[in-house]
């Protein structure tokens, strides 16, 4: 029974914290209803006259998926880390296999460009590396300075 005491306590703490915050905001929060402006979405000071779009490109959903994959991976690492000492080499190899599997998923994502949101218009793909001195030219007074006509 005592094994479950910490879990039960953690559960109790969660409930208390949630209820507590609701209670506090109920007590301390302002009574009056928020004004129309406060409920309106903030658009840099402009009152939005067209309603926000409902359809979003699928790319944003992909990012959520990628996050979930790696979040789950971390969640499994926690219990593993607790008993890492007892399960010695076997445990280590086990978690390595798990990590490699998730990493393969990551490589697949990178390969078909889920994360490369680069601008559609790339000036020069193979642009030579340059420094702030190499990219400029200095035109002194004596060199011919007639403007290059269009």
């Amino acid at each position: 029974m005592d094994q479950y005491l910490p879990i039960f306590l953690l559960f109790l703490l969660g409930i208390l914290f949630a209820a507590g915050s609701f209670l506090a905001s109920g007590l301390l929060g302002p009574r009056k209803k928020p004004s129309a402006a406060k409920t309106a979405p903030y658009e840099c000071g402009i009152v939005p006259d067209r309603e926000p779009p409902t359809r979003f490109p699928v790319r944003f959903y992909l990012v959520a998926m990628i996050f979930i994959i790696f979040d789950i991976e971390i969640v499994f690492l926690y219990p593993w880390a607790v008993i890492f000492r007892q399960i010695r080499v076997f445990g280590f190899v086990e978690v390595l296999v798990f990590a490699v599997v998730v990493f393969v998923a990551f490589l697949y994502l990178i390969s078909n460009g889920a994360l490369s949101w680069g601008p559609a218009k790339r000036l020069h793909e193979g642009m030579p590396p340059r420094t702030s001195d190499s990219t400029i030219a200095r035109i002194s007074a004596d060199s011919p300075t007639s403007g290059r006509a269009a």
Partner: protein
Amino acid sequence: MGLEDLQHNFLTGRLEDLVKWARRNSVWPATFGLACCAIEMMSVGAADYDISRMGMEVFRASPRQADLMIVAGRVSQKMAPVLRQVYDQMMEPKWVISMGVCASTGGMFNNYAIVQGVDQIVPVDVYAPGCPPSPETLLHAILTLHEKIRTGHIARRPEGAAVGGDRPPAGWVPQAPDAVRVATPR
């Protein structure tokens, strides 16, 4: 140890004083830089005149997280409704510093384009004179605001600033901000 030996400290402070102390030491300004005063406001935020000594170095971009609106610059007729909208979207308690003469009274631009004084649109707490106010003037205005918070009432807005607020204080006929587009010459 008699009562007279009690120093005024955390244990003996009233809750209201503590709340006011917390409020005035972390007033976060909203970035409302309009014109030349905005440059001086930025240099107040930078290293030389550092306002992070007063817990204000974080310039919150969105009004949801800002407590103070420093109207830094001249407010044009086109900008007035935007200013009013950002002010309405700020969370209570909120204060307004009208920085510079252009914001306070229209300054040297007494013409069709400038709202002659931002207090026709939003209730102003502290006016900072100067064109642009030197960083020291703005720091002085901020300290005046701290003093006002310390001595002001904890929930209600200070007197005389009910313009556009919810209910005007007794005995003072509110000159409700005439159309947010003020004096639109035809």
